[in-house]
C-alpha cells in the first residue's frame, strides 16, 4: 500500500475511534443548554464554540460523527444486500424475469438517485430512519447489475456443477458458493460509494429531510446554523470541515483498497 493509502487508513481508523469513544473523552453533554454562553467563539472550555442554545459544538460533532458513519454504513450494507438479492433473482430466475429486472436496473441507473431519495423521504415523512430507507431503496441498482453479471459468470464454473451434482438446492448454491465470490467486487464498489452516501445523508439532513433537531447530525447542525452563520461562522464551519475530512479520508481509503485489490490499476501505476 502506498504512503497516501496508509495515512488515509490510519486517519479513518482514528475517525471511527473518535466516533465510538469520543463522548467518554469529551464528557460535556451535547444536549445541555446554557443561555449564558450562547453563540460563543472557540475558547478553552468550548474548543469549537457554542451554538444558539449554548450547547457545546465539539460534543455535538462527536455525537454527530456516529450518525454519519453509522448511517452511511447501514445504507452501504442495505444497498449491497438488496442489490445482491435482486441481482441473484435476475440471474437465477427464468429468462423473462431476468429481462424485466435487467431493464429495470438499467432504467433505475439512469434516474438521478438522490432526487428519487429526496422525493421518497419527503413522502415517507422527514426522519433519519426514513432517509436511510429512501437511500437504500434508490441506491441498489448498481449493486444489482454487478451481482447479476458476476453470478452469470460464476454460474458456469465447475464448482457450481459440483455442488449441483451433490444435490445442493439453488439457495444453498447462491449463498454458500457464489456469494463469497461476489463479495470482493461489491465491497470495492461500496467503498467507492461510501463517501457519496455520507454527502447525500448530510445534504438531505441539511434540507430538513433527515435527522431532526435536537439530535445532532452534521448536515442537521449546518441547517440549524443557517440563521446565525453570517455573524457566527463557527457554527457551520466546524461541522462542514468534519464532513470534508471524513469524505476525504473515506475516498482516499477507498482508492487505496481498490488499488490493492485490482491488479490492473497497480500495473498502470507502475508503468
Amino acid at each position, binding site marked *: 500500500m502506498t504512503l497516501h493509502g496508509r495515512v488515509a487508513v490510519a486517519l479513518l481508523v482514528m475517525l471511527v475511534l473518535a466516533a465510538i469513544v469520543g463522548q467518554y473523552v469529551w464528557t460535556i453533554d451535547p444536549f445541555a443548554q446554557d443561555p449564558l454562553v450562547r453563540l460563543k467563539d472557540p475558547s478553552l472550555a468550548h474548543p469549537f464554540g457554542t451554538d444558539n442554545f449554548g450547547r457545546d459544538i465539539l460534543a455535538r460533532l462527536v455525537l454527530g460523527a456516529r450518525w454519519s458513519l453509522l448511517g452511511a454504513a447501514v445504507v452501504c450494507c442495505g444497498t449491497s444486500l438488496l442489490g445482491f438479492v435482486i441481482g441473484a433473482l435476475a440471474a437465477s430466475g427464468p429468462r423473462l424475469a431476468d429481462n424485466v429486472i435487467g*431493464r*429495470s436496473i*438499467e*432504467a*433505475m441507473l*439512469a*434516474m*438521478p*438517485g*438522490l*432526487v*428519487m431519495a*429526496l*422525493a*421518497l423521504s*419527503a*413522502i415517507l*415523512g422527514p426522519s433519519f430512519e426514513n432517509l436511510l430507507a429512501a437511500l437504500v431503496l434508490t441506491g441498489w441498482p448498481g449493486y444489482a447489475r454487478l451481482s447479476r453479471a458476476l453470478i452469470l459468470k460464476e454460474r458456469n464454473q465447475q464448482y457450481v456443477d459440483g455442488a449441483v451434482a451433490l444435490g445442493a438446492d439453488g439457495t444453498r448454491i447462491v449463498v454458500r458458493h457464489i456469494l463469497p465470490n461476489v463479495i470482493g467486487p461489491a465491497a470495492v464498489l461500496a467503498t467507492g460509494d461510501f*463517501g457519496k452516501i455520507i*454527502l447525500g445523508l*448530510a*445534504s438531505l439532513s*441539511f*434540507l*430538513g*429531510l433527515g435527522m431532526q433537531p435536537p439530535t445532532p447530525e452534521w*448536515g442537521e447542525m*449546518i441547517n440549524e*446554523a*443557517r440563521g446565525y*452563520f*453570517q*455573524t457566527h*461562522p463557527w457554527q*457551520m*464551519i466546524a*461541522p*462542514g470541515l468534519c*464532513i*470534508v475530512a471524513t*469524505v*476525504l479520508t473515506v*475516498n*482516499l481509503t477507498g482508492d487505496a483498497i481498490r488499488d490493492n485489490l485490482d491488479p490492473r490499476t497497480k500495473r498502470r501505476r507502475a508503468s
Partner: protein
Amino acid sequence: MPAYIASRILAAVPVLLVISLLAFGLEALTPGDPAYLLLQAAGRQTITAQDLALKRAELHLDDPLPVRYFTWLSGAVHGDFGRSFRSYTPVAQLYADRVGNTALLAGAAVVIGIVVAVPLGTLAAYRRGRALDRIAQVVAVFGSAVPGFWIALVFIFFLSAQWHLLPVFGTPTPKGIVMPALVLSLSTIAILTRLTRAAVLDILHQEFVVVARAKGLAGGAVARRHVLPNALVPVVTLLGLEAASLMTGAAVVEFVFAWPGIGKMAIDAAMLRDTPVVVGFAIAAGLIYVTVNLVVDVTVTTLDPRISTR
C-alpha cells in the same frame, strides 16, 4: 446515423416507463386523500361527502391501481401531471414557469466546469507529476469531498457578509448568478478534471499520436488535431451522466441561494408534503436526464463516427 439515433430513442422508452411507474408509485404511496387535499387547495371552506365523491370520481381514485396507472400515464403524456396540493396550480405549469431558471444555472455551471476542467486536466496530463498536475489532483480530490450546501454558505459568509462583493440571494442577473453557478460547478470541475487528465494521458500513449509526432507535426497541432478530439469523447459522455447529479446539486444550491428554479420549488414542496410537485421534480429530472443523454449520444457520434457503427 439516423438508424443509430432511432435506436437511442427506442432505448430511452423503457427508462421513461420505469420513471413513470416510480412516479405513479410515489403518488399512490402518499398517505392522505388527494381529493380532500385538492378541494382544500382550491379554496373550499366546507367539503361535503358529495363533493369528495365527485372529486374522487374526477381523479379516478376509486379505480383499481393498474387502471389508475394507465389513466395517469395518458394524462402525463398529454402534459397533465395533476395539481399542487397547496396552490392548486397545475404541476406542469409550475415547472414550465421555473425550468428556464434552473437551465440557466445548470448551463452556467457546466460552462464554468468545462472552461476550468478541460484545460486544467489536459495541462495536468501533459505536465504529469509536476506542480500543475499536483494542483489538478488536489482540486479533483477536494472537489468531490466538499458538500455543495456547505461551500455555498462559506461563499456567502466571505463574499456577501464579510466583503460585500455579491448579493446573498441568487437571482437570474449577472451579479446574482455568480455564486450559485460557481458552487454548482465545483463537483463538475472535480470529476471532469480527473477524467480529462486520464483521457488525455491514455491518448498520449496511442500509436497515432506517436506517428503524428514522428512525422514532425508541432506539439500544438498534435494536441489540437489528434489528442483533444479523441479525449473529448469520454468527457462529453461523462457530462451527460453528470446531468443527474447536477439536478440534485442544483436543488440544494437553489435552496441555499433562494434561486427561483424547479429544485427550490421541489424542496419547498417536500417540506409542505405537496406530493404532486415533489413527484414532478423526479419526472422533470428523469426527462432532462434522458434528453441530455440523447443529445450527448448524438454529439459523441459526430465526434467519433466509429461509435454509431459499433
